[in-house]
């Protein structure tokens, strides 16, 4: 079971992109075996203080341990999979993530 927390700042294009990319990745590679919480730092600054969130978007992988931090809008799919220890699918990565144009 993957427990992921996504910290974002307001409803910006970058926020939308990060949310889309995260759900997209998890659907494809974790097949329902995940739980995502989205925290808007503007609404809950004390939660950001607790986790020392500097850059947004940031994903914290709370489980499985060890904790990991992924900074950015998650457009680097290969990087995300590697950081989350998700094995690469043999047929190659379908990269449909949204990237900043």
């Amino acid at each position, binding site marked *: 079971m993957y427990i992921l927390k996504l910290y974002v700042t307001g409803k910006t294009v970058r926020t939308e992109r990060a949310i889309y990319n995260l759900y997209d990745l998890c659907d494809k590679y974790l097949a329902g075996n995940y739980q995502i919480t989205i925290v808007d*730092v503007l609404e809950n600054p004390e939660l950001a203080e607790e986790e020392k*969130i500097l850059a947004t978007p940031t994903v914290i992988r709370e489980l499985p341990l*060890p904790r*990991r931090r992924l900074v950015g809008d998650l457009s*680097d799919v290969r990087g995300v999979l590697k950081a989350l220890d998700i094995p690469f699918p043999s047929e190659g990565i379908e990269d449909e993530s949204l990237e*900043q144009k």
Partner: protein
Amino acid sequence: MLEKLPTYIEGFDHIANGGLPKGRVTLLSGSAGSAKTVFACNFLAQGVQHGEAGIFVTFEELPEDIRRNMRGFGWDIAQWEAENKWAFVDASYVPDSQVVVGSYDFGGLLARIEHAVRRLNARRLVIDSLSAVFSQFADHGTVRAELLRLTSALKALGVTALVTSERDSEYGAVARHSVEEFVADNVIILRNVLEDEKRRRTIEVLKFRGTSHRKGEFPFTVTPDQGVVVMPLSAIELKQKSSDLRISSGSAQLDQMCGGGFFRDSIILVSGATGTGKTLVATTFLAGGVAQGERCLLFAFEESREQLFRNAIGWNVDFPRMEADGLLRVVAEYPEISGLEDHLLRIKSEISAYRPTRVAIDSLSALERVGTRRGFREFVIDLTSFIKHEEIAGLFTATTPNLLGGTSITEAHISTITDSIILLRYVEYYGEMRRGLTILKMRGSLHDKDIREFTIDGTGMHIGKPFRNVSGILSGQFSYLNKDELDRLTNLFQDDAPDLADR
């Protein structure tokens, strides 16, 4: 003119002409160990003590380390946090492994800072240090863009911010990673320079856009009870009141030579080679004060208390009794125990606490070897200004390096700011060594121009007749005149013109 926010850091507001530009961001740049964090904490601590809440954004040290390190200055940060007068925004390094997977901004940090400022209604903010942000993120382009956004957000929040950054050398680029580009309006530089094997801390306001400040480097020190203390030196204005009141030098003969004694708020320099009787003149000056019921303070940097007391007894001056009566305080220290800045603070606080009307320093030149030439000059100027400001009499002794003739560095530095200069010299007199005393300068008064014989016995100092037939005493190049020549010279300038004194 831009409004300034007083920092209340001792001496700093003088050189900053009132404080930091209000509502602006000021860069505080310095090399490792230049006291940036202490200065920044001092800024917030003074704010708290004057009713202004402050936010400390730390990129480097952990809040618990800062709380512990600053307790030594008497700043109870944990207490202030509980009272909502101080808050940390902890942006220090996170132990979790971190990877960058796409584009990002510092929205999280910004939101936390804004939240903290609003929660405490903070007026002051510190970011320590910008350089550390660069080590947390590899993409410096994004970091620079985000820091620029951060500093403009601070302006919008209306806080007066102090942002620190590292620099690699004392006299080079303003800061590492050219961070001054984001906060270009105001720049302060802290230096910790090694000069002649001695450490010297200085602070310089490099620029304040749209408002004034003092130029150049000013020395500062960090003390346990006050934190940062800047020595404003030239910022001290020469506006001391001047008094016509005369005080006794302790010797009736010397008073007579000075035209009736020293002025009450004057600085007297007694210069001479070792053994010419400088300590005796200082002792006599203090004993004269005590005899009038005045409080006197002596700083001794050459001899121990015991030695001084024994010497004084030899001249029939009872220091222990004077101390017991509460009219004398003797502070004897080795010059090497601390730097000049700390000596200066110590002397000032002793004077402020004891409130004497006479202060003697024996000798000022012993302090020369503690600091650099420039540092010593600043020390002397600051000290004399302070003493004049207190409207008390100060007598300093200075030891000349040569036994015959010559001047000391001390003399060179302070001769123009002293009101009176007394020279003590050895005089070779037909194969015998005698002592001579002359008054070189007595501001605002006529004085005896002779070089008179100065003798010392069990009752103290005595001033005798002028040396009439020896010349070249001051330079140490003696020549002797016979009686006829002397008479001729004496009569040479006598004519019908009235004497200068009768004008």
